[in-house]
């Protein structure tokens, strides 16, 4: 299982804060593959997740777009920050 978390405006587009995805026996998946799974499942995210402004974290560390997600990882989809 991979835990996926959505924040701020993505939470609204997804309609949920958190969702688990089953890799169906695979031990890992590329971020691009995971994004495809998510967009198929939650079409409201399609535009936002293909844009360039969303950062992605794996286990609460920033991840490059070619990163690989392993089973049990936590993946965060992070819109542009506006703290401070």
């Amino acid at each position, binding site marked *: 299982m991979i835990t996926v*978390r959505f*924040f*701020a*405006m993505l939470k*609204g587009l997804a309609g949920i804060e958190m969702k688990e995805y089953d890799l169906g026996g695979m031990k890992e998946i590329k971020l691009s593959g995971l994004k495809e799974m998510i967009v198929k499942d939650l079409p409201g995210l399609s535009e936002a997740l293909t844009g360039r*402004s969303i950062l992605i*974290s794996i286990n*609460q*560390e*920033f991840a490059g777009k070619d990163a690989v997600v392993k089973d049990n990882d936590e993946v*965060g989809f*992070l*819109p*542009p*920050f*506006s*703290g*401070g």
Partner: protein
Amino acid sequence: MTNTLVRIQKEPFSVEETIEAVKSVSKGIGAVVTFLGCGRDFSKGQKITGLEFEHYPGMAEAKLADIRSRALADFDIIEMGIVHRIGEIAIGEEIVLIAVASAHRNDAFMACEWAITELKRVTPIWKRETTTKGEVWVSDTP
């Protein structure tokens, strides 16, 4: 130490307490520079009536702790405290405080400016503004 000097919390915070916390670390401190960010009533021509902040629990705290560690390593400062509020915040209320203690003032000014810029860049915290036209997640920081 890090627990009290770097915090994300719902409750209002005391500026004086945070300054005391960084100041009490050494008698060699000659300067404390603080940045306090507050909720403005206007942004990009829009009247703001309320604010709400959301964070990525765990990751946001870790990023703030990391900013403090890097500041202590890279600037000639003695201590740094960072507090950020989440949840609903009224106009005029405090949102974020960075307090930097050093022997000489230049170092504290530089580290404080760097830290607030870095905070905005790397900390997963999001602001939602309530305007007369509805609620909007703010997606770019000045």
